[in-house]
């Protein structure tokens, strides 16, 4: 166990050291943009469209940094595994596949979310201070402990697990292929849902077109029907089940699938 923890610590140290420069550069760019917005806010009082500076605006910017940046970073988490010139490093480094996976998982989930939470908070504090000194006025700072922010982090972890699997599964264009896969999955899911709906409410359709009575029925949640009670109970159960699957089970499922997938990965095109 000690050996495992030690190796995970070494892997984290190595990974952080290797991405430190691009991460620092990106952080500095974001901080610069935040400062620019704060200064503009201070100089001109006629900038109500600027989102940065309000609680809602901060949350929007934070979510974009978290989701867009985080999912792109996550999609690149196992790039070297599929890269002929670099994969020996992944395969031959003395740590188990599970340890290497845990290190990347921690970095792209907890690590990235914490970095954005703390980084964006510090950027707004710094920008507010500088703008206050230079312009005499300064908008509010980002609150990293806001419930909205923490909910966004939770949702990010769920999405991150899917993109992490995509990073392990696809050999190239991981981000785009994961998005396309999700689109295809939801199209297929909507077809299945439509088919089930058509079968369950078969008496309320003219061919493939729903009757007006079906819309009325749905609007009232079947209030005037004898199965109103069971419909309400069933939809409640479905909501809870779907909620538990999404909130608690989806991310662990994809994390485990990613680890299994990585374990099965071999080098490719090794013929020289």
């Amino acid at each position, binding site marked *: 166990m000690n050996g495992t923890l030690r190796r995970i610590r070494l892997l984290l140290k190595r990974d952080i050291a290797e991405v430190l420069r691009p991460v620092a550069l990106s952080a500095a760019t974001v901080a610069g943009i935040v400062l620019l917005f704060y200064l503009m806010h201070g100089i001109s009082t006629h900038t109500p469209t600027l989102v940065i500076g309000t609680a809602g605006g901060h949350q929007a910017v934070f979510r974009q940094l978290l989701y867009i940046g985080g999912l792109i970073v996550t999609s690149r988490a196992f790039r070297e595994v599929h890269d*002929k010139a670099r994969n020996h490093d992944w*395969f031959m480094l003395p740590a188990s596949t599970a340890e290497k996976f845990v290190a990347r998982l921690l970095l792209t989930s907890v690590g990235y979310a914490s970095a954005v939470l703390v980084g964006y908070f510090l950027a707004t504090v710094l920008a507010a201070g500088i703008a206050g000194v230079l312009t005499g006025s300064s908008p509010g700072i980002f609150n990293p402990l806001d419930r909205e922010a923490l909910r966004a982090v939770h949702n990010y972890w769920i999405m991150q697990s899917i993109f992490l699997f995509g990073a392990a599964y696809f050999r190239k264009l991981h981000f785009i292929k994961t998005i396309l896969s999700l689109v295809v999955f939801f199209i297929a899911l909507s077809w299945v849902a439509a088919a089930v709906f058509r079968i369950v409410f078969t008496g309320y359709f003219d061919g493939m077109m729903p009757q007006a009575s079906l819309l009325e029925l749905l609007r009232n949640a079947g209030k005037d029907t004898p199965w109103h009670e069971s419909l309400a109970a069933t939809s409640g159960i479905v909501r809870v089940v779907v909620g538990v699957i999404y909130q608690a089970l989806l991310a662990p499922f994809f994390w485990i699938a990613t680890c299994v997938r990585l374990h099965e990965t071999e080098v490719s095109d090794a*013929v020289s």
Partner: protein
Amino acid sequence: MISIEALSFSYSGHSREPLFRELSLDIAHGGIYGLLGRNGTGKTTLLRLMSGQLFPHGGRCTVLDRDPADRAPELLRNMFFLPEEFRVPAITGHAYVSLYAPFYPGFDSSRFTTLALELEVNLDQRLSTLSFGQKKKFLLAFALATGCRMLFFDEPTNGLDIPSKRQFRRTVAASLAAGQVILISTHQVRDMENLIDPIIVLENGRIVFFHELDVVSRALAMSHEPVPPADDAVYAEQTMDGYTVLRRRRGDGTPVDLELLFNAIIQAPERVEQACVEGGR
């Protein structure tokens, strides 16, 4: 130390013609082994199978009594693979050592410093900015300092200039520790002259030759002859001024040139093998 029994492997699952079919190899002692073969015979693939980067489709492969496909840290810290093509991180040599050396319990820092000095590698420069040869020499110094019992070098002299090749041979020969296996795969046979022993030759998906040079010296002799040799020659090659002939040794004779031996093995594997088995006793 390395045991391969009836190994089979092919790319693209089982659909293509197998690269290896019933390949067996047993490396029981330490030494600098030369894995020779023509381009595309599967030298790199065999090294990757031995190091757990590829999984065999049939048969068994064990290294230090473990299955390399498990990629257990206990085995990986005793194994270093220097590939022909690689990319290094954009950090200095010193930073690389501080980040990667802790994974290898047997890493010898002072030995690494000495090797880096011998190979003239600048440790203060970002590795990504070094020339290909410099990067290779850096990784070579690192590999030799890890203290791993298994070192796999894939075409290590590719990209090295002539002085560096000589430096490579000298450094590797001086670095071999007791019980350590250095397995060097190459098709540039001349680069490995006076370094590799025993010689393993891979051809048509199987090991066609596996002997120590001492056995070869006792069994075969080389000579230059002006006319085509009679049928008793094991192998002959036409040159500018006659023929270079490989015969069974009878008394004195010029020691066998590695490149000629390799060509002979590729062209007439059975005859060379038979001569070595009978004459090497």
